[in-house]
C-alpha cells in the first residue's frame, strides 16, 4: 500500500472528502451514544439544542468560544511559520496572572489607561514566554514542541505558587485564587442576563487583524514563505531570525491576551482551573481551520458548541460529557485524513514475490 500524489484536486474530491469527514465523526459519536444505551437521534437533538437552540445556549457557546478563538489564532500564526507552539496553555495563564498583577489594584491609574496596560502586560507575558523556546530553536536547534510543552508545566506550577503565595487573595477563605480584578476593568456584557462579553469583539478583531496581516503585509509574506520553504525564503531575502522572533511574540501575545480576556470577561480572578485546556484545544481549532484566521472563528464556535452542547445533553441523558472530547478528537483526525486523501490517493500494490 502506498500514497500517490494527485496531479489535480477537483471540487468533487474536496466535497467528497469533507462530507466523508462529517459522516465519520457522526458515526463515531453515534456508536458511543448507542454504547451508553441512549437514543441516538434524541441525544444529538439535545446536544444541538444545548449548543445553539436558544439565546441562552448560544450565549454560553459564544462565551466558551472567545478564549478558543484567541488560542486558535495563536496556534495558527505560529504553525504558519512552522513554529510549533504547544505552549499556549501556559502563555494563557501567564497572561491572566499579568492581567491581575496590573489590574488587581496594585497600580493607580485612570481606567482606560489601566485597561490598556493590563492587555499589554498580558500579551507581553505570553510573548516573552514563547521567545525563549523560539530562540533556543534558532540558536541550538532545540525542538520547540518539547520546550513549549514543558514550559506549560513550569508555568502552571509557578502560577500555583503565586496563587498560594504573593498573589493570594486574603479574602478568599484559604482558596488558592488571586485577588479580583478591579470592577472598572471588567468587560461589559454583550447580551443582558448572559455571560457572553465584549471579549468576543476583541477576538473577532484579532482574527480579522491576523488575516489582514498574513494576506496583505510583507511580514505576512515572510511568515508564509518561511513556513512553506525556509531555505527558499532565506534565499529570497526573508529575514529568517527576525520573522521567527516576531511570530513567537505574536503567537505568545495572542495566547496571553486570551488569559487577560478570560479574567476580564468571565472569571474576574485567576484560579488554577480557569482553563480546561484552552491552549491545547486551540491547536485542534487551528488545524480544523486549516490555519486560516477567519476559519478559526467558525471552528472555535463549532468546537465550543460541541463542548457546551455535550455538557447540557449529559445532564438530561446520562451520557458522559466526555463524548465532546471524542467528537472534537475524531473531528481533527477526520479532517486531517480527508485533507491527506484530497492531496494523495491510496494505491494498493500486490505483494511482490521473487
Amino acid at each position, binding site marked *: 500500500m502506498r500514497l500517490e500524489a494527485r496531479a489535480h484536486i477537483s471540487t468533487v474530491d474536496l466535497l467528497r472528502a469533507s462530507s466523508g469527514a462529517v459522516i465519520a465523526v457522526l458515526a463515531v459519536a453515534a456508536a458511543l451514544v448507542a454504547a451508553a444505551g441512549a437514543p441516538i437521534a434524541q441525544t444529538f437533538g439535545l446536544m444541538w439544542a444545548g449548543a445553539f437552540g436558544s439565546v441562552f445556549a448560544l450565549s454560553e457557546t459564544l462565551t466558551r468560544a472567545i478564549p478558543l478563538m484567541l488560542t486558535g489564532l495563536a496556534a495558527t500564526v505560529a504553525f504558519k511559520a512552522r513554529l510549533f507552539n504547544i505552549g499556549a496553555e501556559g502563555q494563557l495563564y501567564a497572561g491572566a496572572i499579568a492581567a491581575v498583577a496590573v489590574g488587581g489594584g496594585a497600580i493607580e491609574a485612570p481606567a482606560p489607561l489601566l485597561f490598556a496596560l493590563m492587555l499589554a502586560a498580558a500579551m507581553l507575558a505570553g510573548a516573552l514566554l514563547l521567545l525563549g523556546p523560539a530562540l533556543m530553536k534558532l540558536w541550538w536547534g532545540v525542538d520547540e514542541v518539547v520546550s513549549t510543552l514543558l514550559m506549560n508545566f513550569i508555568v502552571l506550577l509557578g502560577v500555583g505558587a503565586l496563587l498560594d503565595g504573593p498573589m493570594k487573595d486574603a479574602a478568599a477563605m484559604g482558596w488558592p485564587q488571586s485577588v479580583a480584578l478591579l470592577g472598572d476593568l471588567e468587560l461589559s456584557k454583550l447580551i443582558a442576563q448572559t455571560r457572553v462579553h465584549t471579549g468576543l469583539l476583541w477576538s473577532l478583531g484579532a482574527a480579522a487583524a491576523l488575516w489582514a496581516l498574513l494576506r496583505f*503585509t*510583507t511580514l505576512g*509574506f515572510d511568515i*508564509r514563505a518561511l513556513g512553506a520553504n525556509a531555505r*527558499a*525564503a*532565506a534565499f*529570497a531575502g526573508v529575514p529568517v531570525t527576525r520573522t521567527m522572533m516576531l511570530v513567537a511574540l505574536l503567537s505568545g501575545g495572542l495566547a496571553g491576551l486570551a488569559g487577560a480576556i478570560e479574567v476580564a470577561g468571565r472569571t474576574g480572578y485567576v484560579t488554577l482551573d480557569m482553563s480546561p485546556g484552552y491552549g491545547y484545544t486551540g491547536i485542534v481549532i487551528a488545524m480544523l481551520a486549516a490555519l486560516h484566521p477567519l476559519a478559526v472563528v467558525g471552528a472555535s464556535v463549532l468546537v465550543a458548541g460541541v463542548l457546551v452542547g455535550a455538557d447540557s445533553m449529559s445532564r438530561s441523558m446520562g451520557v458522559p460529557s466526555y463524548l465532546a472530547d471524542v467528537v472534537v478528537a475524531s473531528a481533527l483526525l477526520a479532517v486531517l485524513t480527508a485533507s491527506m486523501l484530497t492531496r494523495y490517493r491510496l494505491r494498493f500494490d500486490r505483494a511482490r514475490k521473487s
Partner: protein
Amino acid sequence: MNAPVLRMQGITKRFGDLVANDDISLALHAGEVLALLGENGAGKSTLMSILFGHYVADAGQTEVFGRPLPPGDTRAALAAGVGMVHQHFTLADNLTVLDNVMLGTEGLGGLVTRRAQALARLQAVALRSGLTVPAHARVASLSVGERQRVEILKALYRGARVLVLDEPTAVLTPQESQSLFVTLRQLVAQGMAVIFISHKLDEVMAISQRVMVLRGGRVVAEAATASTSKAELARWMVGQSVAGLQREAARPRAGTAARLQVQGLDAAGGRVHLQQVSLDIHAGEILGIAGVSGNGQGLLAEALSGVAPRTAGTVTIDGEPLRASAQDVVQQGVARVPEDRQAIGVVGDLPIWENLCAEALRTPTLSRWGWVRRAQAQAYAQRVLAAFDVRGATLQRRTRALSGGNMQKLILGRVLQRADGQAPRVIIAHQPTWGLDIGAVNFVHGRLRAARDAGAAVLLISDDLDEIELLADRIAVMCHGRLSPSRIATEWTREQLGLAMAGETEAQPHAA
C-alpha cells in the same frame, strides 16, 4: 575467461524526455575491477540504481551468476550477492559497528538477536578482508575512512560477491584512499568483482583492469586500462567540443576596471571549503566555471549570493564591497539564479505572483509601511510573465504547478527584469539549464547573452562543458575548492579542461 558474474544487457532508462541510460551493456568477471567513468549526469548512478533495484529499467535485463535479477527489488539484489557502498554513507551514527552490520539481516519477528554468532561472523569477515574496525565502537566516533570500511564490511557480511563503490574516494584523505586500494586488491585477489565509479583519472588508472566510459547515457568507450592513458580517458569523458561553430566571438574588454572582483575568498561548507578563490569579470563578459559538481562551485555561488557566509577575502561590485545578507546583495544589483530551482529558487506552495515579487517585496516599489502594494506587485508580475513567456502561469496559481523550464523562466524574469527597473549589474547563474528541454535551454542562453550584451558581468557555473564553451568568454576550472586562473575560452582544449577538472594541475594550457 570464465562466465561473467554480472551481466547487464541493453539497459535503457528514460526520465520523461531525458534518456539517462541508452542501451548500456556491461559484463563483470570475478576477480576484476571495472571502472565506470563519466561526468555528472553521464548515467553512472542511474545504471547502478537499476542494478540495485532502486529503479526499474525501461528495457534490458540483469543477470547475476547467470540467474536473472527481478527488476526493482533491492532485497533480491542483496540476496543475489550485490553489495553497494554509497558515496553518502547509510549508517546509523548512534549504533555500534556490529549493530550497523547486523541491521536488516535479522527477521522482524525474532525476539532474540544472535549477537554472539554475528560478532564471530563479522570477525571472520574482517580477518579475511583485512578490514579492521572495532566492532563495539559507536559509528559516530569513527573517522570517515573507518565508516567506509564499515560500509564495505556490511556488504561482505551479507555475502556480497559483486561490490559497487560509488565515488569511494570523494570523502577520503589520500592516505585513506591508498588503504582502500590495498583492501580492494586483496578482495579482488579472493575473487570479488568490483565496479568502481569515479571521475578521478589517477585512481581509475591505479585500481582498475578495465574501464568503461559513459557520456550522455551511452557507452562511448570500453578499454583495458593498461592500453589507454589519462589523456585519452579525459577526452572520452568530456567528448569533442560541439561549440565551435555556434559560439560568438569573445570580446574581452581589458583595460576597464572589472565589474565583479573577488580576491582571496574563503568560505566553509559541508565537505569542500573555498580556498583563496580570486576572479574578476568585466561588464559585458561571461566567465564560465567548469568543474565536476561538488568541488565548491555551489559554495562559491552561495557566498556571492548572500546565502553562505564568507570567512575571508574581499568581493566588490564596481568597487563597492558586496554586503552580507541576501536582501542587500539583491539591492546591490546581483541577479541570482540558484542551482536547485524547485527547492531554493521558489516557494512552491505560494502563488506565482508572490514568488515573482519575493526578492523585491520589501523595497518601496512593491510595499509601503509594511503593506504590500498589491496592484503594483501584480501588475509587475503580469509584465514579467508576459516578457519571459512563462507558460501555464496565472498570477494566483501555485508555483509548484509549473514545469521546470517555466519555473526557470520565472526566476530569470524576477532577477533580470527587476521591479525597480534597474538592470542587473552581476548575474550569478548556477546550472541555469540543468534538466531543461532544448527549447528552454535556448531561451535561458539567449537571455543570459542579452543581459551580458546589456552590460552585466555574468558568472556561469555549470557541469555541462558544452554550455560553458557555448556561452563563456573566459573559462576557469574549479577543483577541490580552488579555482584555476581563467583563460580565454578558445585557448582551452577539451583535453586540458578534462584534466584540470580531474585535478591534474600540471596540465595548465601553457603550450596551447
